[in-house]
């Protein structure tokens, strides 16, 4: 395996949590729900995904349950912010706290103190026949775990959903001008709630990916700020699935590159190298991104009978 190939393979592997969490953020955001609980939901997804896989056999079950639990949190966010119009930011932070607490608490209750933590098998690489034998691209893109394919497929589906379907047309209108959407019979509350739920489910999947790829077990702090970065990434990608995919490649690429530089023995303090991804992101934004647009109603609650909410 050439060095380039292995580098790119690492990048693609590292993209997955960014893709899933940022697409989740984007999906909810395009419907106007600004979720800020990514970091917590990813931890919850990691913990639940691991524990369920361990206790009920099989990563698939773990992933499904993690997505459901995450989805429940997202549903709650959507529900209280539409039904009671509670502040999205506050609820999001409350959910961040709650999810973080529950994640560790669950592990503590189920596993407890041990020097031999139980493990789940990590995801196997699935080679796609034919495609995986393309030079460079094959091993990079088509010899990965099922979650990698899932992340890309989800991105493609989201693009299709948002821009090619009637549901997408309605969905985006809810995040742009809910009053207009409402006046045409689009169910604003339902759209928001489900987008929020589905978005949070993706975030939980992003978290569940970590134990199933990097560790085989849940470790505290394994999310390590990637949830917060997912928010940045949603802005970076202009709240569009296609650019979020590109942005994930950029973020993951910078993350892996930063370490690569150290391995290559470059004599720069590693602290500076670790800043590289963030500084580079800002530089790219400065020079390349005049396009960044955010959903006009992002983070605001819609009240049909209020005069101020449009």
């Amino acid at each position, binding site marked *: 395996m050439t060095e380039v190939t292995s580098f790119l393979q690492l990048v693609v592997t590292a993209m997955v949590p960014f893709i899933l969490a940022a697409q989740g953020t984007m999906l909810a955001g395009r419907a106007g729900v600004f979720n800020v609980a990514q970091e917590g939901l990813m931890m919850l997804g990691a913990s639940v995904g691991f524990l369920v896989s361990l206790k009920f056999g099989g990563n698939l079950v773990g992933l499904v349950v993690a997505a459901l639990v995450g989805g429940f949190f997202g549903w709650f966010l959507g529900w209280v912010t539409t039904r009671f119009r509670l502040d999205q930011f506050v609820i999001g932070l409350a959910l961040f706290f709650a999810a973080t607490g529950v994640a560790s608490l669950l592990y503590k209750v189920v596993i407890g103190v041990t020097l031999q933590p139980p493990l789940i098998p990590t995801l196997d690489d699935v080679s796609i026949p034919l495609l995986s034998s393309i030079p460079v691209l094959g091993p990079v893109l088509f010899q990965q775990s099922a979650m990698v394919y899932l992340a890309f497929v989800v991105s493609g589906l989201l693009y*299709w959903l948002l821009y*090619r*379907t*009637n*549901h*997408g*047309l*309605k969905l*985006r*209108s809810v995040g*742009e*001008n809910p*009053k*207009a*959407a*409402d*006046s*045409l*019979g*689009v*169910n604003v509350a339902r759209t928001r709630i489900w987008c929020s739920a589905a978005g949070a489910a993706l975030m939980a999947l992003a978290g569940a990916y970590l134990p199933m790829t990097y560790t085989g077990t849940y470790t505290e702090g394994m999310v390590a700020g990637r949830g917060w970065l997912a928010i940045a990434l949603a802005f970076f990608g202009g709240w569009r699935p296609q650019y979020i995919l590109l942005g994930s490649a950029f973020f993951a690429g910078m993350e892996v590159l930063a370490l690569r530089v150290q391995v290559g023995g470059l004599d720069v303090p590693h602290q500076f190298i670790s800043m590289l991804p963030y500084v580079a992101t800002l530089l790219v934004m400065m020079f390349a991104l005049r396009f960044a*647009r955010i959903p*006009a109603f992002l983070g605001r609650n819609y009240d*049909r*009978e209020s*005069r*101020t909410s*449009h």
Partner: protein
Amino acid sequence: MTDSTDSIDSAVRAPRPLLHMDGIRKTFGPVVALDGVDLTVGRNEVHGLLGGNGAGKTTLMNVLYGLYRPDAGTVTLDGAEVVIRDPRDAIAHGIGMVHQNFLQVDTYSVTENIVLGTDLPSWPAINLRGEAERIAELSTRFGLTVDPGATVADLSVGLRQRVEILKALYRGAKVLVLDEPTTNLTPQEVDSLFGSLRAIVDEGMSVVFITHKIRETMAVCDTLTVMRDGRRVGTVARRATTPTELAGLMVGDDAMVSRVTEVVTAGMVAPVAREGAPSTYAVSDAPERVVVSGVVARNDQGVAATHDVSLSVRGGEVLGIAGVAGNGQVELAEALSGVRPMVSGAVSLDGKDLAGAPTATWLDGGVAYVPEDRHRDGILPSESIVENLVLGAQRGRRFRSGPFLDWRRARQHAEASIKAFSIKAPSASTPAAQLSGGNIQRIILARAFSHEPGFLILHNPTRGLDIPSTQFVYDRTREAAANGSAVLLISEDLDELTNLCDRILVVYSGRIVGERRRGEYDQYEIGHLMAGLEESA
């Protein structure tokens, strides 16, 4: 309150009306917006809904459209009682509504805005091209031409209006509600809209047409319902009524009616002689207070929107600028008020050059600006009336004590303004957003006048205002001129311009293409200039 017009009601009521609303009541907290209102709309008719600001017209129609839930009352359509919980129900029952503030997704194309909310199939992809053809076909049928592929943010107000109507037609509405559709339109556009309304009625639909403008109701409506203060005060057939009677119904107070005849009759008869403003005809001798030369300003997209505009305004003069919306008026108004930076050109007030200075300097120098979009540019919605009246003067000496704002003085000023400008509000600490459009405009005027402006720029100052409020604006504008201000009135309402202005300039494509003086006004001719059809020498 019983009205003499009730006898007419039974006369105009068709045997089985298309729509009947009965005893609708709606409150917003302490405000009773609708107090048991009835409305009956017959088949194939344009039904006018007339009333002043805050009469409850919009609220009543929002109830019909399912946007508001009534506290009491029933709706009957085609003889069957229906329950309308949300717009989805309304649409399903064949009700379409064009809202006062357009409800459009700015980033969407015309087609996307129109098909939004329907059940078009998504698999394998939504077929917008097919729908665009349908829309094009509809728009030719009803004379509502618009490019289905254009992004609505790029459309003029008139075209946006058409999109709104097309939305309803596309859904096969039986009853089409238009909430003050003409406030944003030029005379030509109004005519074309009325043509379309007739076409719509001819195809078997009914139209509810909300307006303040008696002239318009007389032009297009078959039947009229007049509302005041959340009540229906009468329903009359157009043929059996007169503008004065309608004004009486709307205003509800005969003394008042005589004071607003100017507005009521604007554009219908020759301008009434104005008493009480005799000195204004001497303006030609007054000194030129404002001199504008060679102004070039760009629009938000960075394209030059005004070209080399030069003009001057004398003290005491009301100079009008006529033009179809989107011909650089916004940019001109903002450039002349110091809000938008100019590319080149000079503006001076009383000999003091203002070009290039920050907005605050213009304000201090005596330039006051009443923007066209009062909600967007005029008020701080969540802040109180007191705070709104301080806006722009916060750095001046009037409301300051040391480094701090003197809120006591600001409140006194607000209370005085509320009285002087007859602002209807529970108190001075009411947030501006809770007020009706007319009252918001009064706040903006109060603020502008309290600056004692040397140069007053008014952009569409009466758009969407009811008769008393419009009259109020007219009176205040004249008063400012009489006090020696140079007044620039940019308006799309020709009636208004010919009524108020000593001189009218016509803009087309950001250039001044004609000038007319009082006495030589001919609306038809000015309309031609506005359409860019005639170059004046």
